[in-house]
């Protein structure tokens, strides 16, 4: 679910919640709601009401204007203050309109206070003042709620536009991430340590005349061809990716036959799916580098794929190696892979890491079953 518009997700750990000064943010919110536009409209309407009621009143125009402006300002503040209050039972817009309706007679009464010396009987005893009070209150009650509704409508419109803008921003961020990660992939080089150690092993096989030499060279060529940076690394199938992973694992098994065992179990119908190249390989390389290689006894790597109950597909790389140190850096590989996955399969795709028992790690790619549409990393027909 997308975050509510305006409600930014709090990143990182917040050890203590801000609880102390609640009043100040509320006050700031009220002042923030008193926009120039609203103040101007309220003042303009106050002048208009004063002009309309002037023929009915005997008092000078500027006194009447003073009263209507005073009322308008009070109602605006009531409207803004009700906006900061988040009632549970009734919607906020209703609270704000009700606040204006309730504030109207009170504000009018307050406006009369100076002329009646704060004594209510002075108001009730004068028929002219009672009539004036009723006139002003009625006019205000007719105009103010409509005005409040108008303001609320505009506010909602602005919110919708902000949300739309937020979505567009999120989308372009996602696209940029996908592009960045593709660039990183292109820049990624074959590790010299891996290459030279593997070549040393091949050399040993060749020198001893081992029949293993030819198949191992074939695996090395397959791996190098796939791992070589290239410009048009578009979509591939999971089957192709698994073949590459197999080449890599065969090389590693030649190098550490006593420490690495592996098995691959991917059903044919899942293997035929379009897939993000170099994704499972990243996980398998990680499993070897951080799981198997640091462990004296080594371990197994099991690669499997299955369809989940909700139709999504899960590709699993499980190792029984050393496991993950909680303070081990995630490495660019995994972070990069996650954004590439989202770029290729959409936002629903994810990378999960599970701890294996008694030790080891299971890295799992989960993606929706539908074919990826408008995927920025997969120009159609980029690769045969």
């Amino acid at each position, binding site marked *: 679910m997308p975050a509510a518009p305006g409600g930014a997700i709090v990143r990182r750990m*917040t050890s203590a919640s801000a609880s102390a000064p609640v009043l100040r943010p509320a006050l700031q919110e009220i002042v923030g709601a008193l926009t120039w536009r609203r103040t101007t409209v309220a003042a303009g309407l106050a002048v208009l009401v004063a002009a309309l009621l002037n023929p009915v009143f005997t008092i000078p125009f500027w006194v009447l204007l003073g009263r209507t402006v005073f009322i308008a300002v009070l109602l605006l503040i009531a409207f803004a203050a009700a906006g900061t209050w988040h009632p549970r039972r009734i919607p906020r817009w209703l609270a704000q309109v009700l606040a204006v309706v309730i504030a109207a007679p009170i504000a009018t009464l307050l406006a009369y206070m100076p002329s009646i010396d704060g004594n209510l009987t002075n108001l009730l005893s004068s028929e002219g003042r009672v009539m004036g009070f009723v006139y002003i209150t009625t006019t205000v009650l007719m105009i103010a709620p409509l005005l409040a509704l108008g303001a609320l409508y505009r506010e909602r419109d602005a919110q919708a536009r902000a949300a739309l803008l937020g979505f567009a921003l999120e989308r372009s961020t996602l696209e940029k991430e996908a592009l960045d990660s593709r660039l990183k992939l292109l820049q990624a080089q074959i590790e010299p340590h891996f290459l030279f150690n593997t070549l*040393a092993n091949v050399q040993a096989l060749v020198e001893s005349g081992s029949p293993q030499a030819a198949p191992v060279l074939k695996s090395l060529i397959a791996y190098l061809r796939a791992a070589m940076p290239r410009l048009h690394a578009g979509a591939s199938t999971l089957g192709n990716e698994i073949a590459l992973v197999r080449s890599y694992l065969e090389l590693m098994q030649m190098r550490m036959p006593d420490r690495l065992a592996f098995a691959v179990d991917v059903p044919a119908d899942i293997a035929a799916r379009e897939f993000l190249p170099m994704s499972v390989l990243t996980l398998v390389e990680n499993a070897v580098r951080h799981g198997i290689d640091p462990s004296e006894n080594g371990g197994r790597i099991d690669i499997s794929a299955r369809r989940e109950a909700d139709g999504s597909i899960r590709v699993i790389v499980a190792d029984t190696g050393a496991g993950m140190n909680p303070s*081990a850096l995630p490495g660019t590989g995994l972070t990069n892979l996650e954004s590439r996955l989202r770029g290729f399969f959409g936002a629903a795709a994810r990378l999960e890491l599970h*701890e294996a028992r008694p030790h080891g790690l299971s890295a799992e790619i989960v993606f929706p079953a539908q074919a990826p549409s408008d995927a920025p990393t997969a120009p159609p027909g980029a690769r045969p």
Partner: protein
Amino acid sequence: MTAATALIADDEPLLRERLRAHLARLWPELEIVAEARNGREAIELFETHLPRIAFLDVHMPGLNGIDAARAIARRAELVFVTAHENYAVQAFEHGAIDYVIKPFEEARLADSVTRLKSRLAAPQPLSADFETVLDRLAGELKARAGAEGRKYLQWIRASVAASVRLIPVEQIAFLRSDEKYTLVVWEGGEALIRTPIRELVE
């Protein structure tokens, strides 16, 4: 003069075999008394056989070649075998420690053999900065492994259904204390863990 004896330590069996085969051709009198698959085995086998030479791969699981070299110290002639690790090669050159780069050529190994033979005949003191170089290399290897150096928490272990998930700290939206537990909410869901926030912060 006692017989020339050597220990080979490398985690990759084909490379142990290859080194053994080339040594047999270049120096038939040399007796390989033991082969080790990691640093721990190298130290154990060294203590058992006390060979006069140790060929040590730098990168090995568990204890690496540098760790083994520090344990053996000045009790044997050391030759490091390493695959294209610039920083290590520089350190060896600087500290005048013998090394061979994998995949090695026989001529290069022959040079080392010549040097070893003359050293066994007339033992020379190792360069004074021998330990300093090894200490620095050991530190560098650890930093590269990523386990040490930075100690911040990067992952949070949390039980989700029947499995233990590892959640990258950067994906966590917030943590909330609940009497006994801590609620972890991240991009992909939420979970309760037993570790209090106070401990996580540490």
